[in-house]
């Protein structure tokens, strides 16, 4: 396993989500900000002959391919992807290389553990988030692909089964109030980051309208009386959900 992992998209995550590029525009594995391009194999992929052969065999039109490590107690917060890119249809495929059942992808109020032995398709323009609650590290191959006939043929048999999906419960109001109370107590003691993360993590436990976790953080700071944080999180919500 390579050890030159890079941290990119820091504002979207808790820390602990690290990547390396296998296909990208420059061929440099540490060039990590995805963008539309005609990609080439990176110097890292050239040292991974089996993976290179696998990726070539798919016959897909790649935009970018990464290997991504999500450490224990690490999160990609609720967000949308591709917002900064041109209006071209593209999709994301995941191949789990190493995983555990505390790691999951959440979208649309449902939690999906991406298990071994399959390829998982995600539409990243829908609000989603990923977590690895208690580890060990989760490692995925992530392929951003342009939609073409080859992609459609490749993915026509990818389907979710009932067993893959855990529909999350909707929280009662008093449950959310309890979490808000606890967040304010943490803010009172000076633990702002933990207070915010405790609310962001509710996205992985409950089905809530889009952006609710950001609204809860706003409310916690409002109750604590920190208007500067209220303004800052209003901006953060816009960035994360592509509302700017």
């Amino acid at each position, binding site marked *: 396993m390579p050890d030159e992992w890079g941290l990119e998209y820091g504002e979207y995550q808790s820390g602990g989500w690290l990547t390396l590029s296998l296909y990208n525009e420059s061929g440099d594995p540490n060039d990590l900000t995805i963008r539309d391009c005609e990609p080439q194999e990176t110097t890292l992929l050239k040292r991974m002959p089996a993976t290179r052969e696998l990726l070539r065999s798919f016959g897909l039109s790649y935009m970018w391919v990464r290997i991504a490590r999500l450490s224990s107690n690490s999160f990609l917060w609720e967000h949308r992807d591709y917002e900064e890119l041109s209006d071209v249809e593209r999709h994301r495929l995941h191949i789990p290389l190493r995983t*555990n059942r505390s790691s999951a992808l959440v979208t649309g109020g449902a939690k999906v553990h991406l298990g071994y032995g399959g390829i998982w398709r995600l539409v990243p323009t829908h609000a989603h988030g990923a977590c690895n*609650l208690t580890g060990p590290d989760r490692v995925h191959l992530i392929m951003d692909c342009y939609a073409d006939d080859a992609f459609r043929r490749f993915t026509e048999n990818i389907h979710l089964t009932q067993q893959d999906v855990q529909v999350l419960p909707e929280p009662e109001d008093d449950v959310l109030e309890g979490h808000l109370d606890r967040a304010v*107590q943490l803010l009172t003691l000076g633990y702002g*980051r933990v207070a915010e993360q*405790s609310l962001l993590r509710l996205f992985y436990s409950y089905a809530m309208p889009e952006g609710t976790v950001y609204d809860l953080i706003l409310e916690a700071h409002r109750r604590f009386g920190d208007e500067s944080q209220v303004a800052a999180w209003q901006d953060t919500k816009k960035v994360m959900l592509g509302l700017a």
Partner: protein
Amino acid sequence: MSTSLISDLAESSPPTIRPLLEVVVDALSSSPRVRRIALTGGRVADLHGAGEIELVVVVDDDCLALFALVLDDLMTHGVGTLLPGWRENADGATTSVDSLYLAPHAGRLHRLRVRLVGGGLAEAVESREPSCPLYVADQVTAGVDSASGVTAEALTDRPPTAAGLLCELLVRLHTLRDELGVSGYLRGYGRVVEVRETLAQLVAAVLGLPESRRRWADLDGELAVTPLGRACRTALHDLVAAPVPGTPTDVAATVRTCLDLVAVADPALAAEWGGTLDSYRHYLDAA
């Protein structure tokens, strides 16, 4: 303004637990109401070894109860512990809180005991055993109204819920694994007895047995009443009849047996904690 002493610790020792201590100190010391964090117990002299990591966290007296209330959040979110704390004991005088956590670090689990102490009693607590300061706040920050209506109830013992007993069981199994080859046969036997006792109490709790009927002598009769109880009794019998685990493979088998029994006794609890239990099995090579 504060002084971190953890770097001093690193100069004298290159321990494997130093990065974990840094994470814990970073997580806890960001509050102006934390006065001091110290490493205590056997790991002061042996930072390379195994065994429990004991920390004393000294906080302002007037917000000890509030810290006790949020400690699990701090450890879960800030440190990434697997479980809420197993509140092993409280002294009844509401002067300190002991919580035991399992913290993943460098691919394995570490037992981390956090003792919250009010500033007024810090010296008395730390003077009882070896102590190595990791963090000392330079200045007292006054004027933060942190009481927030939280009473000393937060310091008292928690009732033995099924989830709490599961935390205790996982910690005890980890202790059993950690002490393999280190201690004598009788000590190992004692650890196994603790595991069995906790598991029996967990089964009794989830089956709703009255507190007065949870002794071993009562379990045969109490568990014989329902099919689920009889299944649990058979599994407990098999566990009690098994020899004391002597190898990691033996312990892995014991872990699987215990967690299988939990899944039989309380499927909802096992499902709710499914991800955590899967992680636990990975760390203990019992997957």
